[in-house]
Protein backbone atom coordinates (compact mmCIF):
# COMPACT_ATOMS: atom_id res chain seq x y z
CA UNK A 1 0.00 0.00 0.00
CA UNK A 2 2.91 2.30 0.76
CA UNK A 3 3.85 1.99 -2.90
CA UNK A 4 0.92 4.23 -3.84
CA UNK A 5 1.41 6.74 -1.00
CA UNK A 6 3.13 9.30 -3.28
CA UNK A 7 0.11 9.19 -5.63
CA UNK A 8 -2.18 9.68 -2.66
CA UNK A 9 -0.18 12.68 -1.45
CA UNK A 10 0.04 14.35 -4.87
CA UNK A 11 -3.69 13.78 -5.32
CA UNK A 12 -4.43 15.50 -2.01
CA UNK A 13 -1.95 18.31 -2.69
CA UNK A 14 -3.50 18.89 -6.11
CA UNK A 15 -6.98 19.20 -4.59
CA UNK A 16 -5.71 21.61 -1.91
CA UNK A 17 -3.84 23.69 -4.47
CA UNK A 18 -6.93 23.92 -6.69
CA UNK A 19 -8.97 25.17 -3.70
CA UNK A 20 -6.33 27.73 -2.74
CA UNK A 21 -5.99 29.03 -6.31
CA UNK A 22 -9.78 29.29 -6.60
CA UNK A 23 -9.76 31.57 -3.53
CA UNK A 24 -7.43 34.07 -5.21
CA UNK A 25 -9.43 36.12 -7.73
CA UNK A 26 -6.26 37.48 -9.37
CA UNK A 27 -4.69 34.05 -9.85
CA UNK A 28 -6.75 33.08 -12.91
CA UNK A 29 -5.36 35.76 -15.18
CA UNK A 30 -1.80 35.07 -14.02
CA UNK A 31 -2.33 31.35 -14.66
CA UNK A 32 -3.32 32.06 -18.27
CA UNK A 33 0.21 33.23 -19.02
CA UNK A 34 1.61 30.06 -17.44
CA UNK A 35 -0.93 27.69 -18.96
CA UNK A 36 0.50 24.68 -20.80
CA UNK A 37 3.94 24.90 -19.16
CA UNK A 38 5.56 22.10 -17.21
CA UNK A 39 8.12 22.43 -14.43
CA UNK A 40 9.76 19.48 -12.70
CA UNK A 41 11.31 19.66 -9.27
CA UNK A 42 13.36 17.04 -7.51
CA UNK A 43 15.24 16.88 -4.23
CA UNK A 44 18.47 14.91 -4.67
CA UNK A 45 17.71 13.05 -1.42
CA UNK A 46 14.54 11.47 -2.89
CA UNK A 47 13.67 9.35 -5.93
CA UNK A 48 10.47 11.19 -6.72
CA UNK A 49 10.33 14.05 -9.17
CA UNK A 50 7.33 16.33 -8.90
CA UNK A 51 5.98 17.64 -12.19
CA UNK A 52 3.81 20.76 -12.12
CA UNK A 53 1.57 21.36 -15.13
CA UNK A 54 -0.17 24.72 -15.34
CA UNK A 55 -3.74 24.23 -16.54
CA UNK A 56 -6.33 26.90 -17.24
CA UNK A 57 -7.61 27.10 -13.67
CA UNK A 58 -5.16 25.21 -11.50
CA UNK A 59 -1.79 23.52 -11.26
CA UNK A 60 -1.82 19.76 -11.80
CA UNK A 61 0.72 17.56 -10.02
CA UNK A 62 2.35 14.36 -11.25
CA UNK A 63 5.34 12.19 -10.45
CA UNK A 64 7.56 11.04 -13.30
CA UNK A 65 11.07 11.36 -14.72
CA UNK A 66 10.31 12.25 -18.32
CA UNK A 67 10.78 15.30 -20.52
CA UNK A 68 9.40 18.67 -19.30
CA UNK A 69 10.01 22.33 -20.20
CA UNK A 70 12.26 22.99 -17.21
CA UNK A 71 13.66 20.64 -14.57
CA UNK A 72 15.29 21.64 -11.29
CA UNK A 73 17.31 19.34 -9.05
CA UNK A 74 18.38 20.63 -5.67
CA UNK A 75 19.48 19.21 -2.34
CA UNK A 76 17.58 19.85 0.87
CA UNK A 77 20.41 22.00 2.24
CA UNK A 78 20.52 24.30 -0.77
CA UNK A 79 16.76 24.76 -0.70
CA UNK A 80 16.92 27.71 1.72
CA UNK A 81 19.54 29.46 -0.37
CA UNK A 82 17.49 28.93 -3.51
CA UNK A 83 15.11 31.68 -2.41
CA UNK A 84 17.88 34.25 -2.66
CA UNK A 85 18.40 35.15 -6.35
CA UNK A 86 21.96 36.42 -5.62
CA UNK A 87 23.04 32.96 -4.52
CA UNK A 88 21.70 31.22 -7.64
CA UNK A 89 24.79 31.48 -9.86
CA UNK A 90 26.97 30.29 -7.00
CA UNK A 91 24.67 27.32 -6.38
CA UNK A 92 24.65 26.35 -10.07
CA UNK A 93 28.46 26.64 -10.26
CA UNK A 94 28.97 24.39 -7.27
CA UNK A 95 26.45 21.86 -8.67
CA UNK A 96 24.26 22.22 -5.59
CA UNK A 97 21.44 23.06 -8.01
CA UNK A 98 21.02 21.68 -11.54
CA UNK A 99 18.68 23.34 -13.98
CA UNK A 100 17.77 21.82 -17.36
CA UNK A 101 15.67 23.71 -19.87
CA UNK A 102 14.07 27.14 -19.88
CA UNK A 103 14.94 28.88 -16.58
CA UNK A 104 12.32 31.58 -17.28
CA UNK A 105 9.60 29.00 -16.79
CA UNK A 106 10.96 28.22 -13.33
CA UNK A 107 10.90 31.93 -12.53
CA UNK A 108 7.33 32.27 -13.83
CA UNK A 109 6.19 29.41 -11.59
CA UNK A 110 8.07 30.86 -8.65
CA UNK A 111 6.48 34.30 -9.22
CA UNK A 112 3.05 32.72 -9.45
CA UNK A 113 3.42 31.02 -6.08
CA UNK A 114 4.92 34.09 -4.43
CA UNK A 115 2.07 36.29 -5.63
CA UNK A 116 -0.57 33.76 -4.67
CA UNK A 117 -2.75 35.51 -2.13
CA UNK A 118 -5.92 33.53 -1.45
CA UNK A 119 -8.78 35.63 -0.15
CA UNK A 120 -9.76 33.07 2.47
CA UNK A 121 -11.36 35.72 4.67
CA UNK A 122 -14.28 36.34 2.33
CA UNK A 123 -14.79 32.60 2.06
CA UNK A 124 -14.79 32.10 5.83
CA UNK A 125 -16.97 35.19 6.32
CA UNK A 126 -19.83 33.35 4.65
CA UNK A 127 -19.94 31.00 7.63
CA UNK A 128 -18.73 33.21 10.52
CA UNK A 129 -19.87 36.66 9.44
CA UNK A 130 -17.65 39.69 8.78
CA UNK A 131 -16.98 40.71 12.37
CA UNK A 132 -15.84 37.35 13.63
CA UNK A 133 -13.76 36.72 10.51
CA UNK A 134 -11.99 40.06 11.00
CA UNK A 135 -11.18 39.08 14.59
CA UNK A 136 -9.95 35.66 13.48
CA UNK A 137 -7.81 37.17 10.74
CA UNK A 138 -6.32 39.67 13.24
CA UNK A 139 -5.68 36.89 15.74
CA UNK A 140 -3.91 34.77 13.13
CA UNK A 141 -1.66 37.60 11.95
CA UNK A 142 -0.79 38.42 15.59
CA UNK A 143 -0.05 34.75 16.16
CA UNK A 144 2.21 34.67 13.12
CA UNK A 145 4.03 37.77 14.42
CA UNK A 146 4.40 36.21 17.86
CA UNK A 147 5.84 33.02 16.37
CA UNK A 148 8.30 34.98 14.26
CA UNK A 149 9.34 37.04 17.30
CA UNK A 150 9.79 33.90 19.45
CA UNK A 151 11.75 32.27 16.68
CA UNK A 152 14.10 35.23 16.47
CA UNK A 153 14.67 35.41 20.20
CA UNK A 154 15.20 31.65 20.38
CA UNK A 155 17.78 31.89 17.64
CA UNK A 156 19.58 34.70 19.47
CA UNK A 157 19.43 32.76 22.72
CA UNK A 158 20.94 29.67 21.08
CA UNK A 159 23.69 31.73 19.52
CA UNK A 160 24.59 33.33 22.84
CA UNK A 161 24.47 29.99 24.61
CA UNK A 162 26.77 28.33 22.10
CA UNK A 163 29.22 31.21 21.81
CA UNK A 164 29.40 32.77 25.25
CA UNK A 165 28.12 30.32 27.85
CA UNK A 166 29.15 26.88 26.57
CA UNK A 167 31.82 28.22 24.20
CA UNK A 168 31.06 25.45 21.69
CA UNK A 169 31.08 27.72 18.68
CA UNK A 170 33.41 30.68 17.94
CA UNK A 171 32.15 34.24 17.60
CA UNK A 172 32.32 35.57 14.00
CA UNK A 173 35.04 38.04 15.10
CA UNK A 174 37.10 35.16 16.45
CA UNK A 175 36.70 33.29 13.18
CA UNK A 176 37.86 36.33 11.20
CA UNK A 177 40.83 36.78 13.53
CA UNK A 178 41.72 33.10 13.20
CA UNK A 179 41.52 33.33 9.42
CA UNK A 180 43.79 36.38 9.39
CA UNK A 181 46.30 34.60 11.60
CA UNK A 182 46.26 31.58 9.33
CA UNK A 183 46.92 33.69 6.25
CA UNK A 184 49.71 35.54 8.06
CA UNK A 185 51.25 32.22 9.01
CA UNK A 186 50.87 31.04 5.43
CA UNK A 187 52.67 34.16 4.19
CA UNK A 188 55.51 33.66 6.69
CA UNK A 189 55.87 30.06 5.62
CA UNK A 190 56.10 31.10 1.98
CA UNK A 191 58.79 33.62 2.85
CA UNK A 192 60.75 31.00 4.78
CA UNK A 193 60.46 28.52 1.92
CA UNK A 194 61.82 31.07 -0.52
CA UNK A 195 64.73 31.88 1.79
CA UNK A 196 65.46 28.16 2.16
CA UNK A 197 65.41 27.83 -1.61
CA UNK A 198 67.91 30.71 -1.94
CA UNK A 199 70.29 29.13 0.56
CA UNK A 200 70.06 25.76 -1.12
CA UNK A 201 71.07 27.29 -4.44
Amino acid sequence: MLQLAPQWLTGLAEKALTEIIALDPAAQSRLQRLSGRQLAFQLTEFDWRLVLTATKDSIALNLHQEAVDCAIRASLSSLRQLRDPNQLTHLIKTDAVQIDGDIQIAQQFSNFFQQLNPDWQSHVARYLGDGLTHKLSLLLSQLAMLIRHKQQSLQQLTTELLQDELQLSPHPVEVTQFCTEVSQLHARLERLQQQLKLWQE
Partner: protein
Amino acid sequence: MSDSNSKTTHFGYKTVAEDDKVSLVANVFHSVAAKYDVMNDLMSFGIHRLWKRFTLDCSAVRPGQKVLDLAGGTGDLTALFSKRVGPGGKVVLADINASMLAVGRDKLRDQGLVDNIEYVQANAEALPFADNSFDIITIAFGLRNVTNKDAALASMFRVLKPGGRLLVLEFSKPQSELLNKAYDFYSFNLLPKMGQLVAGDADSYQYLAESIRMHPDQQTLQQMMEQAGFAEVSYHNLTGGIVALHRGYKF
Protein backbone atom coordinates in the same frame (compact mmCIF):
# COMPACT_ATOMS: atom_id res chain seq x y z
CA MET B 1 -8.20 -16.84 -24.65
CA SER B 2 -10.71 -17.49 -27.36
CA ASP B 3 -10.68 -20.78 -29.18
CA SER B 4 -10.76 -20.04 -32.88
CA ASN B 5 -11.88 -23.51 -33.99
CA SER B 6 -15.18 -23.76 -32.17
CA LYS B 7 -15.68 -19.96 -32.05
CA THR B 8 -16.44 -19.91 -28.36
CA THR B 9 -14.99 -17.74 -25.63
CA HIS B 10 -15.27 -17.35 -21.88
CA PHE B 11 -17.77 -15.16 -20.13
CA GLY B 12 -16.56 -15.36 -16.56
CA TYR B 13 -16.38 -19.12 -15.90
CA LYS B 14 -19.05 -19.89 -18.51
CA THR B 15 -18.23 -20.76 -22.10
CA VAL B 16 -20.32 -18.86 -24.62
CA ALA B 17 -20.37 -18.37 -28.37
CA GLU B 18 -17.96 -15.62 -29.42
CA ASP B 19 -20.76 -13.65 -31.05
CA ASP B 20 -22.72 -13.61 -27.80
CA LYS B 21 -19.98 -12.26 -25.53
CA VAL B 22 -20.32 -8.66 -26.68
CA SER B 23 -24.01 -8.51 -25.84
CA LEU B 24 -23.52 -10.39 -22.57
CA VAL B 25 -20.82 -7.93 -21.44
CA ALA B 26 -23.00 -5.09 -22.66
CA ASN B 27 -25.83 -6.31 -20.43
CA VAL B 28 -23.52 -6.33 -17.43
CA PHE B 29 -22.52 -2.72 -17.97
CA HIS B 30 -26.01 -1.48 -18.91
CA SER B 31 -27.03 -2.93 -15.59
CA VAL B 32 -24.29 -1.37 -13.45
CA ALA B 33 -23.61 1.95 -15.25
CA ALA B 34 -25.63 4.13 -12.88
CA LYS B 35 -23.94 2.79 -9.75
CA TYR B 36 -20.54 2.19 -11.36
CA ASP B 37 -18.61 4.91 -9.52
CA VAL B 38 -20.11 4.17 -6.11
CA MET B 39 -19.38 0.47 -6.54
CA ASN B 40 -15.80 1.15 -7.64
CA ASP B 41 -15.14 3.18 -4.51
CA LEU B 42 -16.81 0.58 -2.31
CA MET B 43 -15.21 -2.50 -3.84
CA SER B 44 -11.67 -1.15 -3.94
CA PHE B 45 -11.94 1.00 -0.78
CA GLY B 46 -11.18 4.01 -2.98
CA ILE B 47 -7.82 2.60 -4.08
CA HIS B 48 -8.90 2.55 -7.74
CA ARG B 49 -8.29 6.32 -7.71
CA LEU B 50 -4.66 5.74 -6.79
CA TRP B 51 -4.25 3.05 -9.44
CA LYS B 52 -5.55 5.57 -11.98
CA ARG B 53 -3.24 8.31 -10.71
CA PHE B 54 -0.33 5.89 -11.01
CA THR B 55 -1.38 5.25 -14.63
CA LEU B 56 -1.48 9.01 -15.21
CA ASP B 57 2.05 9.38 -13.81
CA CYS B 58 3.31 6.58 -16.06
CA SER B 59 1.80 8.27 -19.10
CA ALA B 60 4.00 11.39 -18.58
CA VAL B 61 1.29 13.32 -20.44
CA ARG B 62 2.23 16.74 -21.83
CA PRO B 63 0.08 19.72 -22.82
CA GLY B 64 -1.05 19.52 -26.46
CA GLN B 65 -1.02 15.72 -26.70
CA LYS B 66 -3.80 13.50 -28.08
CA VAL B 67 -4.99 10.82 -25.67
CA LEU B 68 -7.36 7.90 -26.22
CA ASP B 69 -9.06 6.66 -23.04
CA LEU B 70 -10.35 3.33 -24.28
CA ALA B 71 -13.11 1.54 -22.38
CA GLY B 72 -13.03 4.81 -20.45
CA GLY B 73 -16.34 4.08 -18.74
CA THR B 74 -17.32 6.93 -16.50
CA GLY B 75 -14.34 9.04 -17.48
CA ASP B 76 -12.09 9.13 -14.38
CA LEU B 77 -8.90 9.05 -16.44
CA THR B 78 -10.38 11.32 -19.12
CA ALA B 79 -10.96 14.01 -16.48
CA LEU B 80 -7.35 13.82 -15.30
CA PHE B 81 -6.00 13.86 -18.87
CA SER B 82 -8.32 16.62 -20.07
CA LYS B 83 -6.94 19.12 -17.53
CA ARG B 84 -3.34 18.29 -18.43
CA VAL B 85 -3.45 18.30 -22.24
CA GLY B 86 -5.15 21.71 -22.15
CA PRO B 87 -6.92 23.51 -24.99
CA GLY B 88 -4.21 22.52 -27.50
CA GLY B 89 -4.66 18.82 -26.85
CA LYS B 90 -7.52 16.36 -27.11
CA VAL B 91 -8.88 13.42 -25.15
CA VAL B 92 -11.13 10.86 -26.80
CA LEU B 93 -13.29 8.89 -24.39
CA ALA B 94 -14.24 5.67 -26.14
CA ASP B 95 -16.42 2.90 -24.79
CA ILE B 96 -18.37 0.13 -26.48
CA ASN B 97 -21.24 0.62 -24.07
CA ALA B 98 -23.65 3.50 -24.67
CA SER B 99 -24.92 3.54 -21.08
CA MET B 100 -21.43 3.92 -19.65
CA LEU B 101 -20.59 6.61 -22.19
CA ALA B 102 -23.73 8.54 -21.26
CA VAL B 103 -22.90 8.39 -17.54
CA GLY B 104 -19.33 9.48 -18.30
CA ARG B 105 -20.43 12.38 -20.46
CA ASP B 106 -22.84 13.68 -17.83
CA LYS B 107 -20.23 13.43 -15.12
CA LEU B 108 -17.51 15.23 -17.08
CA ARG B 109 -19.90 17.99 -18.16
CA ASP B 110 -20.91 18.48 -14.54
CA GLN B 111 -17.24 18.97 -13.74
CA GLY B 112 -17.04 21.67 -16.42
CA LEU B 113 -14.80 19.60 -18.68
CA VAL B 114 -16.15 20.22 -22.19
CA ASP B 115 -13.49 21.93 -24.32
CA ASN B 116 -11.17 19.16 -25.39
CA ILE B 117 -13.12 15.91 -24.93
CA GLU B 118 -14.73 13.83 -27.65
CA TYR B 119 -17.02 10.88 -27.04
CA VAL B 120 -16.93 7.89 -29.34
CA GLN B 121 -18.81 4.63 -29.05
CA ALA B 122 -16.30 2.17 -30.41
CA ASN B 123 -15.27 -1.46 -30.34
CA ALA B 124 -11.66 -1.84 -29.18
CA GLU B 125 -11.10 -4.61 -31.74
CA ALA B 126 -11.78 -2.27 -34.67
CA LEU B 127 -11.02 1.28 -33.62
CA PRO B 128 -12.58 3.89 -35.92
CA PHE B 129 -9.51 6.15 -36.02
CA ALA B 130 -6.79 6.83 -38.60
CA ASP B 131 -3.37 5.17 -38.23
CA ASN B 132 -0.88 6.98 -35.97
CA SER B 133 -3.47 9.26 -34.32
CA PHE B 134 -2.67 9.19 -30.59
CA ASP B 135 0.30 9.96 -28.33
CA ILE B 136 -1.10 7.96 -25.43
CA ILE B 137 -3.68 5.16 -25.25
CA THR B 138 -4.99 3.92 -21.92
CA ILE B 139 -7.34 1.04 -21.30
CA ALA B 140 -8.21 0.74 -17.62
CA PHE B 141 -10.19 -2.29 -16.46
CA GLY B 142 -11.45 -2.81 -20.01
CA LEU B 143 -9.24 -5.31 -21.82
CA ARG B 144 -10.67 -8.11 -19.65
CA ASN B 145 -14.08 -7.70 -21.26
CA VAL B 146 -12.89 -7.60 -24.85
CA THR B 147 -13.72 -10.77 -26.80
CA ASN B 148 -10.61 -10.90 -28.99
CA LYS B 149 -7.77 -9.32 -27.00
CA ASP B 150 -5.12 -9.84 -29.69
CA ALA B 151 -7.24 -8.01 -32.27
CA ALA B 152 -7.79 -5.19 -29.76
CA LEU B 153 -4.06 -4.82 -29.02
CA ALA B 154 -3.30 -4.83 -32.77
CA SER B 155 -5.94 -2.17 -33.34
CA MET B 156 -4.47 -0.01 -30.54
CA PHE B 157 -0.99 -0.44 -32.03
CA ARG B 158 -2.29 0.78 -35.38
CA VAL B 159 -3.82 4.04 -34.09
CA LEU B 160 -0.89 4.85 -31.78
CA LYS B 161 1.67 7.36 -33.09
CA PRO B 162 5.28 6.17 -33.39
CA GLY B 163 6.89 7.12 -30.08
CA GLY B 164 3.52 6.83 -28.37
CA ARG B 165 2.72 4.49 -25.52
CA LEU B 166 -0.04 2.13 -24.47
CA LEU B 167 -0.96 1.71 -20.81
CA VAL B 168 -3.06 -1.27 -19.80
CA LEU B 169 -4.39 -1.10 -16.24
CA GLU B 170 -6.09 -4.37 -15.39
CA PHE B 171 -6.75 -6.83 -12.61
CA SER B 172 -4.02 -9.44 -12.46
CA LYS B 173 -2.62 -12.22 -10.34
CA PRO B 174 -1.75 -11.42 -6.68
CA GLN B 175 1.87 -12.30 -5.96
CA SER B 176 1.56 -13.78 -2.49
CA GLU B 177 -0.43 -16.95 -1.70
CA LEU B 178 -1.95 -15.45 1.45
CA LEU B 179 -3.17 -12.35 -0.37
CA ASN B 180 -4.54 -14.58 -3.12
CA LYS B 181 -6.66 -16.54 -0.62
CA ALA B 182 -8.00 -13.44 1.10
CA TYR B 183 -8.69 -11.88 -2.28
CA ASP B 184 -10.56 -14.98 -3.51
CA PHE B 185 -12.72 -15.02 -0.40
CA TYR B 186 -13.45 -11.34 -0.81
CA SER B 187 -14.31 -11.55 -4.52
CA PHE B 188 -16.53 -14.63 -4.44
CA ASN B 189 -18.27 -14.20 -1.10
CA LEU B 190 -18.45 -10.50 -0.33
CA LEU B 191 -18.34 -8.83 -3.75
CA PRO B 192 -21.58 -10.32 -5.20
CA LYS B 193 -23.38 -9.47 -1.93
CA MET B 194 -22.16 -5.88 -2.08
CA GLY B 195 -23.29 -5.78 -5.72
CA GLN B 196 -26.71 -7.05 -4.72
CA LEU B 197 -27.01 -4.54 -1.88
CA VAL B 198 -25.85 -1.39 -3.67
CA ALA B 199 -26.46 -1.94 -7.37
CA GLY B 200 -29.21 -4.57 -7.00
CA ASP B 201 -27.31 -6.92 -9.25
CA ALA B 202 -25.29 -9.84 -7.86
CA ASP B 203 -24.74 -11.60 -11.21
CA SER B 204 -22.78 -8.73 -12.74
CA TYR B 205 -20.37 -8.71 -9.81
CA GLN B 206 -20.10 -12.49 -9.89
CA TYR B 207 -19.10 -12.02 -13.54
CA LEU B 208 -16.55 -9.37 -12.49
CA ALA B 209 -14.87 -11.77 -10.04
CA GLU B 210 -14.88 -14.63 -12.56
CA SER B 211 -13.63 -12.53 -15.47
CA ILE B 212 -10.69 -11.35 -13.34
CA ARG B 213 -9.63 -14.99 -12.78
CA MET B 214 -9.91 -15.75 -16.51
CA HIS B 215 -7.80 -12.73 -17.53
CA PRO B 216 -4.19 -13.47 -18.57
CA ASP B 217 -1.60 -13.01 -15.81
CA GLN B 218 1.24 -10.46 -15.87
CA GLN B 219 3.70 -12.41 -18.04
CA THR B 220 1.06 -13.62 -20.51
CA LEU B 221 -0.27 -10.11 -21.09
CA GLN B 222 3.30 -8.86 -21.53
CA GLN B 223 3.85 -11.50 -24.24
CA MET B 224 0.54 -10.62 -25.91
CA MET B 225 1.57 -6.95 -26.08
CA GLU B 226 4.94 -7.88 -27.52
CA GLN B 227 3.25 -10.07 -30.14
CA ALA B 228 1.04 -7.14 -31.11
CA GLY B 229 4.19 -5.17 -31.91
CA PHE B 230 4.77 -3.13 -28.76
CA ALA B 231 8.39 -2.56 -27.71
CA GLU B 232 9.98 -2.25 -24.27
CA VAL B 233 6.94 -3.79 -22.62
CA SER B 234 7.15 -3.73 -18.83
CA TYR B 235 4.69 -3.97 -15.97
CA HIS B 236 4.25 -2.74 -12.39
CA ASN B 237 2.37 -4.78 -9.84
CA LEU B 238 0.12 -2.58 -7.74
CA THR B 239 -1.37 -3.54 -4.37
CA GLY B 240 0.48 -6.86 -4.35
CA GLY B 241 -0.43 -7.74 -7.92
CA ILE B 242 -4.22 -7.47 -7.54
CA VAL B 243 -3.81 -4.93 -10.30
CA ALA B 244 -0.97 -4.59 -12.81
CA LEU B 245 -0.09 -1.69 -15.08
CA HIS B 246 1.50 -2.78 -18.37
CA ARG B 247 3.30 -0.24 -20.49
CA GLY B 248 4.48 -0.66 -24.09
CA TYR B 249 5.82 1.70 -26.75
CA LYS B 250 5.40 1.88 -30.50
CA PHE B 251 8.62 2.78 -32.28
